[in-house]
């Protein structure tokens, strides 16, 4: 019996070996290296191995850092709230109001297809809508709502949030839809028989049972928004900053130790957030 168990361990490890190797080389090693480099010293042209805290001292000593982190949390919170409301409503419609499975699959696929196309193109595609002479402005002017084109539509926080919602709502829809499909329909019938109204069923039955899906969606959206740098740069026209942009600016200046220090703080922040969220859901059970 013991020999069998050992065999199982060995064969398990053998099959997990390629995965472990990839993650060791392209995930663990890079993280270790970032942590190491965050203690290095930088001159204008090169980086020098050292063990100094100056990168962190500079990071925590600058008021910009706190503003940028605050901004990052702001983006994450607003995007989270919007994607949750939209994603939940869409998933609820698909799971409980679309009656045939064929339609469910078809409409679900329609929601997921954009996820498999290019994010950058999807950002670019907002230009004709939000631009100074874009569709939104010309429509509003022709309706007489405004006289002058609105300047804050493109290249603003509004545009950043809009793009985040556009890109990431899907990450809410899929896990929430997945958990909703597993809710036993007889529970809802039982609630109705017991006299619950539609709102009561939604609030007291469906939402509690959908919580794991909501948590998984939250993990996706929060981490994607917090780690983003390209959406903020493109949609704000380089006018707003988040932590990702702070890192990418340092990289552009070849200030790798400083970038690494910021990256370590960002990673810790994200992991703490995820750690808290994972207390509410067992991912392995929900798959």
């Amino acid at each position, binding site marked *: 019996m013991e020999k069998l168990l050992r065999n199982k361990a060995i064969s398990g490890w053998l099959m997990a070996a390629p995965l472990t190797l990839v*993650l060791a080389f392209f995930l663990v090693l890079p993280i270790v290296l970032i942590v190491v480099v965050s203690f290095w010293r930088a001159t204008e042209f090169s980086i020098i191995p050292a063990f100094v805290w100056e990168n962190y001292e500079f990071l925590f000593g600058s008021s910009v850092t706190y503003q940028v982190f605050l901004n990052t949390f702001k983006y994450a919170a607003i995007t989270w709230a919007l994607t949750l409301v939209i994603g939940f409503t869409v998933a609820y419609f698909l799971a409980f109001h679309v009656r045939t499975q064929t339609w469910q699959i078809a409409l679900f696929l329609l929601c997921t297809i954009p996820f498999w196309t290019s994010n950058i193109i999807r950002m*670019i595609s907002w230009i004709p809508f939000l631009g100074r002479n874009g569709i939104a402005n010309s429509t509003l002017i022709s309706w007489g709502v405004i006289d002058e084109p609105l300047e804050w539509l493109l290249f603003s926080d509004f545009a950043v949030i809009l793009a985040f919602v556009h890109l990431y709502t899907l990450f809410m829809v899929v896990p929430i839809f997945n958990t909703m499909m597993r809710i036993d329909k007889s529970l809802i019938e039982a609630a109705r028989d017991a006299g619950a109204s539609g709102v009561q069923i939604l609030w007291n039955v469906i939402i509690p049972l959908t919580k794991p899906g909501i948590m998984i969606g939250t993990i996706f959206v929060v981490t994607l928004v917090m780690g983003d740098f390209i959406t903020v740069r493109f949609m704000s026209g380089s006018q707003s900053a988040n932590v990702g942009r702070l890192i*990418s600016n340092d990289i552009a200046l070849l200030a790798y130790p400083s970038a690494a220090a910021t990256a370590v703080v960002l*990673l810790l922040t994200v992991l703490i957030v995820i750690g808290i969220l994972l207390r509410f859901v067992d991912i*392995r059970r929900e*798959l």
Partner: protein
Amino acid sequence: MEPRSRSFYLLAIFFALFLLFLYGPTITIGILSFQGPGGGLTFPMRGTSLHWFRDLFEQQAVGDIWGSFGRSFLLGLMVMVTTVVVSVMGGLAFRKRFPGSTVLFYLIITSLVIPSILISLGVGLMFSQTGLDVHWSTSGFGSQLTWTLPFGLLIMFAVFNRFDKSYEEAARDLGASPWQTLRHVVLPIIAPSLIGVALFGFTLSYDEFARTLLTAGSYNTLPLEIFGMTTNVTTPVLYALGTLTTAFSLIMIGFFLCIAWWSARRKARTGSDAGKGLV
């Protein structure tokens, strides 16, 4: 069937608006990419033409987009094949609950949630500090795997959570070796979901930007090339390129979905070999 409630119609309208929100912008640049030669980045259309698509074939207008397209396509295929093979092996390994599997599981989750720029920065540093050259087919390839593998594995976990073990037991009782059980029983059953893993592997790689930013080296992939264009190209040629690459993505998605549909049908038709006899 009970009649549709009012909330159904409200939700249906909401859903339709959501789809419009999802697809509207892309359709708009699709239309605008047919601008006449004098047209700009927004409406109105100044005539219709294929002018901007023709521009895509001129080097001086757009740079090396066909070269980068070729690299992205090849890299997508490499990532796709690797993702499928490694995910299946990983999925099978996790069924055995080997010691250390929990650590590996949390590594996969970390790989999924880590900000992409950290991978880009870390892998870039790793290669430069060890004196290796970054190249899309080495460092870029590995960086993209940290994004596609978690998705592949999550799909495999979902598949194996629903897998009926009695099929394997039946095969074993009939004298099949572990390899035969895998080859003739397990793999055919999970084959349709492998198409899903392949779809994720290819499309996520083909569109990946952040993780290849510092790891692609001197030869750009297509998303990097497109992003470079956004800073200096202000003509609808950008839309023409966007339309073409989106169309390409849609063709690939359609291709994968067709295979999935076809294999599901085939499975339904020939799923049982009762009465045929195996020699």
